[in-house]
């Protein structure tokens, strides 16, 4: 894709070890605005580890991170938030007992001058964000416990839009969803791209990945194992890169650097 423009996020030579286990070795990753990059790989390939570095939960042992072409570090989730990185974690970070608005603004509630919460402004903004995502959640006052798994995922994605982020990291957003719910979530991801955000999508599901992503970055045993253009690469090619099976063609390493 837009390899000529400055990537929103550029990671170079990222390495991370947990004790003797090398989780990531010299991994590169680029994400542009208006782009959905799928991060795929088998269990333990290092997808989530890489994503956690983007969201500031983990810190790399070695490597360079650039945001907007500027070298930076993301030591904490707060730092990630300040950069404009929003993350939807695999185990949904939502509170069932709170309503949709409260969940969207949890940890960054809007306040009135008196110091107390501005619930009305938050609800109005929540309504707007849900509409931006074309979400079908009827009321922002609905408690999370009444929502379906797909609607919760929509809330989790909507959450990322509070505070005008530039890069959204989605860790397995369609795991454990029904077909219809998956379709709904994929639609929300496309909306994120239309809104001009960069998206990192981690998924096991190749059908989902091919449906929404622009580029597919394959990790295997903590190393880069190919970058594919989602539109022009074949299912077999990508699968071969994930599993390490011998393939007839070498994957085209492009859009890097």
């Amino acid at each position, binding site marked *: 894709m837009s390899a000529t423009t400055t990537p929103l996020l550029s990671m170079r030579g990222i390495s991370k070890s947990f004790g003797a286990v090398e989780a990531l070795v010299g991994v590169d990753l680029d994400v542009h605005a208006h782009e959905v990059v799928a991060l795929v790989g088998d269990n333990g390939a290092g997808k989530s580890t890489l994503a956690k570095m983007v969201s500031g939960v983990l810190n790399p042992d070695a490597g360079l991170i650039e945001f907007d072409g500027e070298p930076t570090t993301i030591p904490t*989730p*707060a730092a990630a*938030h300040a950069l404009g990185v929003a993350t939807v*974690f695999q*185990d*949904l*970070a*939502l*509170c*069932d*007992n*709170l*309503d949709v608005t*409260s969940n969207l603004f*949890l*940890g*960054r*509630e809007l*306040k009135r001058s008196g*110091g*107390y*919460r501005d*619930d*009305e*402004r938050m*609800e*109005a903004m929540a*309504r707007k964000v849900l509409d931006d995502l074309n979400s079908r959640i*009827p*009321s922002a*006052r*609905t*408690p999370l*416990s*009444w929502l379906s798994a797909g609607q919760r995922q929509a809330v989790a994605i909507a959450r990322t839009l509070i505070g005008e982020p530039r890069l959204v990291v989605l860790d397995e957003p369609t795991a454990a969803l029904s077909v219809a719910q998956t379709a709904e979530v994929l639609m929300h991801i496309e909306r994120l791209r239309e809104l001009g955000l960069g998206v990192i999508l981690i998924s096991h599901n190749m059908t989902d990945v091919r449906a929404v992503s622009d580029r597919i970055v394959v990790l295997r045993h903590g190393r880069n194992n190919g970058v594919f253009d989602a539109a022009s690469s074949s299912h077999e090619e990508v699968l071969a890169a994930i599993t390490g099976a011998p393939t007839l063609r070498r994957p085209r390493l492009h859009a890097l650097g």
Partner: protein
Amino acid sequence: MSTDTNLAPAMPSGEKPRLSIGERMSGLGGNARQYGIFAALIVIVLLFQVLTDGKLLLANNVAALFQQNAYVMILAIGMVMVIVAGHIDLSVGSVVAFIGGVVAVSMRDWGLPWLVAVLLGLAIGCVVGAWQGFWVAYVGIPAFIVTLAGMLVFRGLALVVVGETIAGLPSTFIKISKGSLPNFLGFANNMDVVTIAIGVLAVAAFVFSQLRARAQLRKHELHVESLGAFVAKIVGVALLVGILTVILSLSAGGTPIVLVIVGALVVAYSFLMGRTVFGRHIYAIGGNRLAAGLSGVNTKRVDFWIFVNMGLLAGAAAIVTTSRAGAAIAAAGQNYELDAIAACFIGGAAVTGGIGRVAGAIVGALIMGVLNMGLSIMSVDPSWQMAIKGLVLLLAVAFDLINKRRAGTS
């Protein structure tokens, strides 16, 4: 009592044809449970009014009801916050005895003025709360263990401080629990004008806050409840406050001072839980501690302050208790923690945390209080009173659980 209703889910009508009946019923969930427990209180009051041949609602009995149960209500406010955050506090009874002892000693032996002694009691409460909060929040020991230890530690300290009953406390101090507001406005038809004025002011403040909240929603073009429901709510509250005001104004002293204290605490803490960021974070921690942490809520700090606050309120309860007894005794506050915990659960708090309201806990405390008073007027044996209260607690929670299951939200 209903300034903290904004967490209640309000379902806009006619907007979502996709909802099943079950979902629609649970849509009333938050409010229905709150109204349900309130309705239960009214039923129990009416029941005992009949069973006691109208003695329950005699003016002096109603005033005594508040004076006798002020300590439970004060403790229940703090306890509901502890429970909502997913903790428990077993130490409050012992803390009440300990602080009560120190306050009494400070007045009798050290000669402190009563007001300084009261402030000292509240300050010690905060220190005790900070001590327990430290172990819970920053060391990570379950609150059950920390406060079980606190129950022993502070009962022990209470025995040290109060070797023998400390009596002879200043009369001003004793007035906190036993006195009433001065009737400086005189009487009209035998009714204390001060009490009437407070009642009128309370209703006016309620109507004003409701109108303001509605205007805020309107301004942001958000859904508001129908005008009928809105007016019904205001008329209902005004009617109940009005009845209470008239009854109290006919009592021997007028408005008990503790009622003013409890009322102020209820309003302040309903606001804290319902409208502030801190309150929202308490609910979030109780709902999903991990998620709250990931979202940037400082869970340790919230835990810590919840216990500091519980200590503060235990200090207030100690002052009220000591003042009511007119003396400090080492055995004071026995089972107070259980009274407060029971009030919270009767009032709709969830054992798992995340759910519960200040208003609910107060209603729970009143239900227990009315049971106590009604059964006492009927001269039911205290042993049976205890058994009956135990069953009421069990049934209240069972009823709540069955309701939730039927609504399919548990």
